[in-house]
Each structure stands twice: as C-alpha cells, then as structure tokens.
C-alpha cells in the first residue's frame, strides 16, 4: 500500500504525536545535564527539575513586596493588551478587507498603500509610535495593531476578491445592494477566514507585545522575561516561555473550536 494511504491506528497515532515532544525534552535534558556536570552553577540550561520548582514557585508564591503572584498579574496585563490589539485589528481588517475587496474605488486607493505599509518594519519605527501614542497601554496596543493590521487587511481583502464572481452576480440578480452583498454574502464568507487569519497573526502579535513590553512596561509577560534576561535566569525565562506557548496554543484551540462552532458550513461537505 502506498504510504499516502496508510493511516496509523489509534494507539500508534498517540505514540507518534508524543514522539517529537519526548525527543525534544530528552535532547534538552541531556544538554542541560552535560552543562551542569561541567559547571554545577551554570544558568543557561537549568535542569528540568529546577524549572519545575521555579514554575511551582512562580505560579503559587506571592511576591514579597507586592504580595501578589506576579505571574498572574503579568498574564492578565499581557492578555488584555493582546486582546485589545488583536481585537481592534480584526474589526478594522474586516471592514477594510470588505471595502477593498468589493469596491474598485477603495481598492485603487488603499491596496497599494497597504501593500507598502505592510513592508515597513514596525520595530524600526517604534520610537515614533511611543512619541505619538505615549508610553502607556495605548502604545503597546498600537504596536500590535501596526504590526498585524496590514497583514490582516491584505489577507482578508484577497479572500473577498476570491469570492466567485458568479456568487456576487447571483446576489445582484436577487436585487442586493452593495451593502447587502457586503453584509450577507461577503461578510459571512469572510468570517471563517478572519478566524484563520487571526490565528496566523497571533504569533506576530505576541512578538510585538513582547517587544513593546520589553521597552516600557511595569508588568506583563514580555516585561518579566526581558527583566530577568539580564541575569540569565533561564529557569524563569523558560517557565514564562512555556507558559506563553501554552497560552498561545490554547488561544489557537479556542479559535479553531469557535470557527467550527460558528461556521458549520465550512466543515460540512460532501
């Protein structure tokens, strides 16, 4: 039988899914062991047990000064920023994507501009963003928006353009105005793609969040990582990295689930 038609059984499948994770963990454990044997106080690759202890401490023990658990405070601060940045971007991208995709006039005006703006490296214009939007929460949210909005607009407008002409024409023959076509034909078909696009842009969004928090913040996951990076507290960094990865993964799962829940017609097929 061709490899292409060979499907793993239930058990094999579980084993296969776990395999690369186990290998990665093993490689880390061995690398850490080699370094710790050479220098017991090496900070770069702390032993997995050290990371586990640190993680336990970070998740449960309140900070002495503030008597709050820093990790949760950091998480809340970061998630709010991320949620605002991604949420605002998604709304703007949907509206602009529809306009650019449907209306030739708007497309002529904005498509080229968005294409050029999407090429500007946001990190390089960071100082300007901070001046214009201040150093507060706003500037962090804005950096996320500046970072992911052009991509979202380009992706979504391309999807609107991809809607078969026949479908638009059909709607026109049913008497639909441009507004109704946007609202009832294009938008519903765009939304599942919006979720896809948001899933794709969560990675860059985290990146910009961390970059923004590294420069000016009093709390946040990126702030903490940046702070302890100077001391190479890799046990804390790795705990935070794993935690961020977990959060990002959960968000991705939720979005996927949401897409299935909200748009059953994308899954249903012959």
């Amino acid at each position, binding site marked *: 039988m061709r490899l292409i038609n060979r499907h793993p059984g239930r058990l094999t499948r579980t084993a296969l899914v776990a395999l690369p994770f186990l290998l990665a963990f093993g490689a880390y454990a061995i690398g850490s062991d080699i370094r710790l044997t050479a220098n017991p106080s090496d900070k770069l690759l702390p032993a997995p047990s050290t990371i586990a202890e640190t993680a336990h401490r970070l998740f449960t023990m309140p900070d002495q000064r503030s008597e709050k658990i820093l990790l949760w405070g950091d998480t809340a601060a970061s998630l709010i920023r991320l949620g605002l940045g991604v949420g605002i971007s998604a709304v703007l991208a949907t509206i602009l994507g529809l306009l650019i995709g449907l209306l030739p006039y708007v497309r002529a005006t904005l498509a080229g501009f968005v294409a050029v703006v999407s090429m500007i490296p946001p990190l390089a214009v960071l100082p300007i963003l901070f001046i214009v939007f201040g150093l507060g929460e706003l500037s962090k949210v804005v950096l996320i928006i500046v970072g992911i909005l052009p991509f979202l607009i380009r992706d979504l407008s391309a999807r609107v353009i991809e809607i078969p002409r026949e*479908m638009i024409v059909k*709607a026109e023959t*049913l008497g639909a105005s441009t507004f109704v076509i946007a609202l*009832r*034909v294009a938008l*519903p078909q765009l939304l599942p793609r919006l979720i896809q696009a948001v899933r794709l842009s969560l990675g860059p969004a985290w990146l910009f969040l961390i970059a923004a928090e590294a420069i000016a913040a009093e709390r946040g996951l990126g702030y903490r990582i940046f702070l302890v990076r100077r001391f190479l507290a890799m046990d804390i960094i790795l705990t935070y990295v794993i935690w961020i990865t977990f959060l990002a993964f959960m968000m991705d799962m939720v979005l996927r689930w949401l897409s299935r829940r909200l*748009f059953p*017609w994308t899954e249903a097929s012959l």
Partner: protein
Amino acid sequence: MSFVVARDIFQSYGTRPILQRVNVTVEEGEFISIVGASGCGKSTFLRLLLAQERPTRGEIRVAGAEPAEEPGRDRGVVFQRYSVFPHMTVRDNIVAGESFRTRWGMFSGAAKRAARDRADETLRRIGLDHVADQYPATLSGGMQQRLAIGQALTAKPRILLLDEPFGALDPGTRLSMHDFLQDLREETGMTVFMVTHDLEEGFKLGDRVLVFDKPRWDPHDPNAYGATITYDFDARDGGIPFQRIKEDTHVFRPA
C-alpha cells in the same frame, strides 16, 4: 418594439473574437433555448444578456430601456456553479431570493416567518424539503443545482437566464424541474434564455432554439473568428420545427 433586442453584438477577449454580428429579437414571455458547440460563446452571450459584461460593440435593450449597466432584479440567473450561497442553509438560500432586495438583506418578525413558510413551500415543490436545514455543501451536485434554480425563481425575475441548469440532474428530477419551470413561467409570464447541451430539452422547453456556431473557420487559426447565431428554429409546433437558416455555415461538426 420587441421585449429583448440584441443589435449587432461583437464581443472579444483581448484580441480574440468570441461573438460577432449577433442579432436577435425576443418577445416578452418567449422561451429561448441556446445550443452550440462547447466553448463557442454561449455562456458569454448569457453574460451579456445579464449585463454582467458589456459587449465590445452593439447593444442589448430590454423593454426598450437603455442598455442595462449591471445585473439587477429583472434578470435572474443560474450558473453552472456557485449559484447558491454556501454559508446559508437550504431554506435560507430560498429566503434570500426575496430578502436580498431589502435594506438589510434580511427579514425579521412576521415577515421572516411568512418568508420561511413560502420557502418551505418552494422546497417541497423542488423536492428539497427534507434537507431544508442542511448546508449546500452537504447536498449532491444535482440537489445544489435544483436549489439554485428554486432560489432564482423565488426572486420572480422578468427574464431568467439559465446556463446548463439541468446538466447535472438525473432524468427523473430533470423532468420534474421542467414541469416546475413551465408552471412558474405560466404564473409569471417571464422570458427565459436557457443554454443547454440537450437538443431534445431545448426543443421541448423552448419556443425557439438558437444555434451558435462559427460561420467561418480558419483551419490554421481556429480562434480567428467568433461565433454567431447560425440557426434560429421555431420550436413551438410540438417538435416540428420551422427552420430559418440565418447564416451559411461550412463548418461540419465532428461525428
């Protein structure tokens, strides 16, 4: 003045002529079948009738009005593909035939219930009532096409354009769709243009059968000439056609 008048239509894509010198007049309520070799420009002609495209030369007038600028509610259409909305249930697809003309593209309250009831009635007639709550993607190709026809008819257009609508239907369903279509024609008296590959179907449903073909053929460059209407059969007298040869053709169809 005839209801639909196509005068001296030329259409080319780039430098390649597809249609040339197409002239036809159609009375209100006539059923026009269009046949012709694959790729000869039947769908193109339908797009022109629909005002989805404008001809390179010539013009098409409906009811003496200025040539339409864009597709509208007076012209219904069913394409070979993509004629239903994948994100709406079967029932909502039918309701869309009525609701899209409204400000928000949807009904609410009592109007909504009434529209749903009418939609269910339509679904019963086209035999899709048992899948009213499913999405089109779960239907077989044939059922999807039935739905598309039902949807277009729900909007009660004055002209209905059909591009091989029954190509994917089995004979039984096809027959019942013929009946359905003829019923609705009687009710509404609308004018129909139907592209079909089935000559028999064309003659059965049509009052006239237009044949598109290339009047000239350059063996070295098969794309040098466009197609036009080479025959215009009168199909009303129960299959005993009254032929009017419009253009001499020296192209012989293979087999």
